[in-house]
């Protein structure tokens, strides 16, 4: 030990070992003694040194309390979430307190301390003097304080040999016991079963162990006597039970140490480990001499039954007559839980099972659960495992924590077996344990990477709930990067591989995995990382080899960094996209005509380089249009810029600027058909019917004359429309006449074409009341067609 002077050593709830040094440094070692980490209790402690220290437990974890050389207290209520609290000064404290203890009440951590005759309760903010009620007038010094495991009770030992027991609030007294011993005990602790009516304290002196309870008498064991056997002594109706757990041989001159538990006290010496607790009521009832309790009778009944004796029936009858069979079974089950010898557990359970046969529907849960629990308890009590839990302790701890503790001890196979036996889901049970095993395995430095990776994969396979990336992270933590990469290969979720790979600076591999994952966000993460890590050239080069990443990055740039996008295209000699880029920027970035034309000219150049003749030419045409529009706009009331060519011509036509429109038509090689459409649409809109007629006669219409009819009808001018129907091609003539409402002509045209379906169409437009003549005509025509 090279670190410093250790003042106090103790376990935490997570089974770490704390070493509290006199300079206030607390070192944490794991259960195997390996150093984990350390923390300091602060400057004040460092300056004044640690005089005494205590480790205590709260619902949130383990805490450390320090008494400094300046007689001040500093506390940390949870060492995993370190917040130091310095307690106020105790008035008049010139010497170290005679005794003190940590008390957790209402989620607040306090300190109870005695300074000779004075008793104080100290908390964060205040210091309060208290007097325990009912101690009598005689002045006495408090030499020891004991606080129960659940912080509900408090006991004081006085220099007059009295023990005061009461509530931890110091408001209610339970009793005062005179021990006739003036020397203070070396250790003084509560020994309590939950819900017990017989609260007691245990103290040890040299060669003496004393139990004091709510009665006049005390039990004193010389160590030598206690060593003889497991014993039960009777004292004011309270039975005490000393369990020999590992090896029970006290030597007269051996030092012992007491460890309070939730339901009793462990007595540990250098060669033995015993557990002292009040005998639970069920066991008392059954095993009390000459007990007539239902459980006792049932046990007896079963014994007789095994002997095939009819006495069995007598016992059973007796229980049944009192209607207590149900209680009897329950008692036996409960008692079995508190027994340590498997043989005794078995006979109690068999008795319970026997009793159950005579109850029609005894719920099976309690029995089955107890049998299972006992099997687990017996397994862990085995000396090779060495976790001697009592049944209440096991229940308090929960099976999950127990499994954690087995994992902590690297007892993986047992932990897995227990999980399977207790039917704990694979996710929480077996897989989790295997993962822990794997994390342990990667720390075995002497084995080569390949072997470990294979061993882990063989054992873990595709078990649900296993995260290979967590195991890999552990391997990386241990400095085994190569192993970590090998393990990551087994990780099916690429998303989990990437962050670790980045952490290990395997960015290329990370990029590959990110792409494999199909998760764009992940790819972006790696790409952003690469962008910051690499110089621009290398970065582009890397992307070049990863088309997916590259196109995603392009997407990103398109919205966020257009200039980078340009660089990327430049690097690829992608002239088509560069052309597109300039077109886009001509719209979004340029605010002057010169600017736009310049950008478009750049686009033309790029399109030419890309050998996209069409795009180059059409963009040149666009430049031409912008210039024309700019010129024409000066003489026009309307905005022309940014209008499509089509709209530009249309606007000019509406303004009757036929010459200019005509010029654009020629300059931009607008197809005749479209120009005719443009022109008639504009003229009809202006209702310039004369001009429309003139235009229709200017030359033969490339779009036929049906559009003329349609456009006139559209503008509600059937009169004008009629002028053009005659010119409509024969196939459309009927449609034209119907459109202008001239059904008679329509019939004629249809008859001429001998077209029955056209005749039917006309028929469907007729109203019988007004169009009687036409209907007749149609019918006549139809019969004629049919004849031929």
């Amino acid at each position, binding site marked *: 030990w090279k670190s410093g002077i250790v003042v106090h050593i103790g376990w935490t709830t997570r089974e770490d070992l704390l070493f509290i040094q006199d300079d206030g440094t607390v070192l944490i070692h794991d259960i195997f003694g390996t150093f984990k980490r350390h923390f300091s209790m602060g400057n004040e402690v460092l300056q004044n040194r640690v005089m005494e220290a205590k480790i205590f437990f709260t619902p949130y974890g383990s805490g450390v309390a320090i008494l400094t050389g300046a007689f001040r207290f500093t506390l940390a209520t949870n060492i995993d979430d370190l917040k130091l609290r310095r307690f106020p000064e105790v008035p008049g404290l010139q010497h170290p307190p005679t005794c003190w203890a940590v008390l957790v009440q209402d989620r607040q951590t306090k300190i109870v301390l005695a300074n000779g005759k004075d008793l104080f309760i100290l908390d964060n903010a205040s210091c309060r003097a208290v007097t325990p009620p009912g101690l009598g007038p005689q002045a006495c010094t408090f030499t020891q304080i004991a606080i129960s495991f659940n912080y509900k009770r408090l006991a004081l030992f006085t220099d007059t040999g009295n023990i005061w027991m009461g509530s931890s609030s110091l408001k209610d007294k339970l009793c005062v016991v005179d021990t006739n011993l003036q020397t203070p005990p070396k250790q003084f602790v509560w020994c309590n079963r939950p819900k017990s009516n017989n609260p007691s304290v245990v103290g040890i002196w040299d060669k003496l162990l004393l139990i004091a309870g709510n009665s006049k008498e005390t039990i004193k064991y010389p160590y030598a006597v206690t060593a003889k056997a497991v014993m039960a002594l009777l004292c004011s109706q309270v039975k005490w039970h000393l369990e020999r757990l590992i090896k029970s041989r006290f030597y007269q001159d051996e030092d012992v140490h007491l460890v309070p538990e939730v339901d009793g006290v462990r007595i540990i010496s250098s060669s033995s480990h015993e557990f002292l607790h009040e005998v639970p009521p069920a066991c008392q009832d059954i095993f009390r001499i000459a007990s007539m309790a239902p459980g006792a009778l049932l046990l007896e009944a079963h014994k007789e039954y095994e002997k095939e004796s009819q006495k069995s029936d007598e016992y059973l009858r007796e229980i049944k007559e009192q209607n207590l069979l149900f209680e009897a079974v329950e008692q036996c089950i409960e008692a079995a839980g508190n027994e340590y010898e498997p043989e005794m557990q078995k006979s109690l359970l068999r008795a319970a099972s026997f009793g159950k046969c005579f109850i029609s529907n005894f719920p099976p849960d309690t029995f089955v659960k107890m049998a299972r629990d006992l099997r687990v308890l017996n397994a862990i009590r085995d000396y090779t495992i060495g976790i001697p839990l009592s049944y209440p302790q096991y229940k308090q701890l929960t099976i999950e924590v127990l499994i954690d503790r087995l994992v902590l001890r690297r007892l993986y196979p047992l932990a897995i077996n227990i999980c399977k036996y207790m039917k704990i889901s694979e996710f929480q049970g077996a897989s989790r344990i295997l993962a822990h095993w794997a994390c342990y395995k990667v720390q075995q430095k002497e084995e080569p990477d390949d072997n470990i990776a294979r061993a882990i994969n063989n054992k873990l396979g*595709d078990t*649900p709930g296993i995260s290979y990336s967590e195991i890999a992270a552990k391997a990386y933590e241990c400095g085994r990067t190569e192993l970590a990469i090998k393990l990551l290969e087994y990780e099916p979720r690429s998303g989990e591989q990437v962050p670790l790979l980045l952490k290990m600076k395997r960015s290329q591999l990370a990029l590959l995995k990110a792409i494999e994952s199909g998760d764009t*966000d*992940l790819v*972006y*993460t790696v790409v*952003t990382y690469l962008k910051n890590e690499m110089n621009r050239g290398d970065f582009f080069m890397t992307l070049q080899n990863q088309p997916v990443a590259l196109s995603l990055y392009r997407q*990103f740039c398109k*919205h*966020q960094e257009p200039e980078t996008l340009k660089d990327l295209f430049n690097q690829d000699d992608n002239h*088509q996209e560069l052309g*597109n880029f300039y*077109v*886009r920027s001509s*719209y*979004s*970035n*340029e*605010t*002057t*005509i010169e600017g*736009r034309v310049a950008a478009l000219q750049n686009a033309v150049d790029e399109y030419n380089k890309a050998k996209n003749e*069409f*795009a180059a030419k*059409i*963009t040149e*045409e*666009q430049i031409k*249009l912008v210039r024309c529009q700019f010129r024409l706009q000066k003489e026009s009331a309307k*905005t022309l*810029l*940014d*209008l*499509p*060519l*089509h709209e530009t011509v249309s606007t000019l036509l509406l303004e009757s600027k036929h010459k200019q429109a005509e010029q654009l038509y020629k300059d*931009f090689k*607008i*197809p005749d*058909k*479209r120009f005719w*459409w*443009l022109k008639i*649409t504009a003229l009809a809109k202006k209702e310039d019917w004369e001009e429309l007629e003139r235009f229709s006669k200017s030359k033969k219409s490339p*779009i036929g004359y049906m559009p003329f009819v349609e456009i006139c009808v559209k503008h509600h001018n059937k009169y004008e429309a009629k002028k053009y129907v005659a010119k409509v091609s024969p196939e459309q003539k009927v449609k034209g006449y119907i459109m202008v409402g001239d059904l008679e002509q329509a019939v004629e045209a249809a008859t001429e074409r001998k077209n029955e379906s056209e005749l039917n169409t006309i028929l469907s437009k007729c109203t019988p009341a007004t169009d009687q003549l036409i209907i007749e005509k149609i019918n006549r025509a139809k019969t004629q067609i049919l004849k031929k």
Partner: protein
Amino acid sequence: MAIVWDEHLTGPFGLIAQYSLLKEHEVDKMFTLKEGRIPPADVKNIIFFVRPRLELMDIIADNIRCEDRLHGPHRDFHILFLPRRSLLCEQRLKEQGLLVHITHIEEYSLDLIPFDSDLMSMESESAFRVIANVKLPPEKFAPKKQNETGRDLPTEPKKLQLNSAEELYAEIRDKNFNAVGSVLSKKAKFISAAFEGRHNAKTVGEIKQFVSQLPHMQAARTSLANHTSIAELIKDITASETFFDNLTVEQEFMSGIDTDKVNSYIEDSIAQKEPLIKILRLVCMQSVCNNGLKQKVLDYYKREILQTYGYEHILTLNNLEKAGLLKPQTSTRNNYPTIRKTLRLWMDDINEQNPNDISYVYSGYAPLSVRLTQLLARPGWRSIEEVLKMLPGPHFEERQQLPSGLHKKRQQGENRVTLVFFLGGVTYAEIAALRFLSQMEEGGTEYIIATTKLINGTSWIKSMMDKLEPSLF
């Protein structure tokens, strides 16, 4: 608390949790995400429900800065990403120095939004509302009562949520538009017959039975009235000449008529400046059915489009070319007729009323995707190996190795369930075709459909358009 919504999310979220439900969970106010100040509200917590998009992060940043300037930091901000949190977005917030201001960043992984019992979509882009709900002109739905004039017509657009939970909708939704009318009229007769049934109910028992069916019948009558009105609205369109002409051209292309030269209908439509999307749909269709257009034809169309609709659409045309929807003919051989014949993509004798093949959905054209699905189930793709090579893009089969625990035994008589995932989107007609396959008795396969987006021809082309807004002049 208050929720600030990304506009695009209110639709999908409405399918899962209505405002009333949120209110029960202490949501006091709801706002739409936009720049500037969040409207004042007496709340402690503000939750942003957003898609993971950088531009939205900038808006959130702006919101929070405004808040802090006005009130100092007394509110808690939280961000809930849908469907996934994004490191990129968090990075953006960090750059803006705002990550510390945000108490929680969580994700609500809503990957697939259920639209119906057999249909899920990721809805990776907007336009959700349009699909899940229909908004209809109100005057068509005013209760018709004679001799009553001056009655106020409802003015709010009518909103209906449509899915298979509604019996009648489930029946008509996958019908050809020409077949809906007859179904509705049959239904109408059936319902009025059911109502007439009350005259036949003589005994108390019979009357009781009639009365117990009444609510169901009334619901059916309301539903019928709604759907008749909707069908009328649809008929206004499908009976129009424009629709008919357009359909005729489409069907000509699909059956391979005159696909190699400039189509005069398209030409005239451009000259009359019909909606650009319509033009693009037709041109693309022609290009696909001709395995690319002759350079001259293609350039002519492109020039016509650019001169008529504006040169900025050069980018949109380029996008379509990149997607292969529009392309110059590279070889003289046109594969489409072979594909069409082998895969029976065009059926001349279709039965719209009582369909016997998936081609009923387009009145002749059998959607390629669904035909491939059908052939995969029986007899398998091996039989069409040659044609598969002609289709754009690679094809492959991959068998997923399942961990032994995941194997599921099929019960006797239980149909095989196949999930068809449409990347990029699926149309309602394709869905209808797949549903038709599910219902075929000898098929033995049920199809569940998942997709990245529900689309139609218009929304699909729209998604490929590059919108350039002129910024000056």
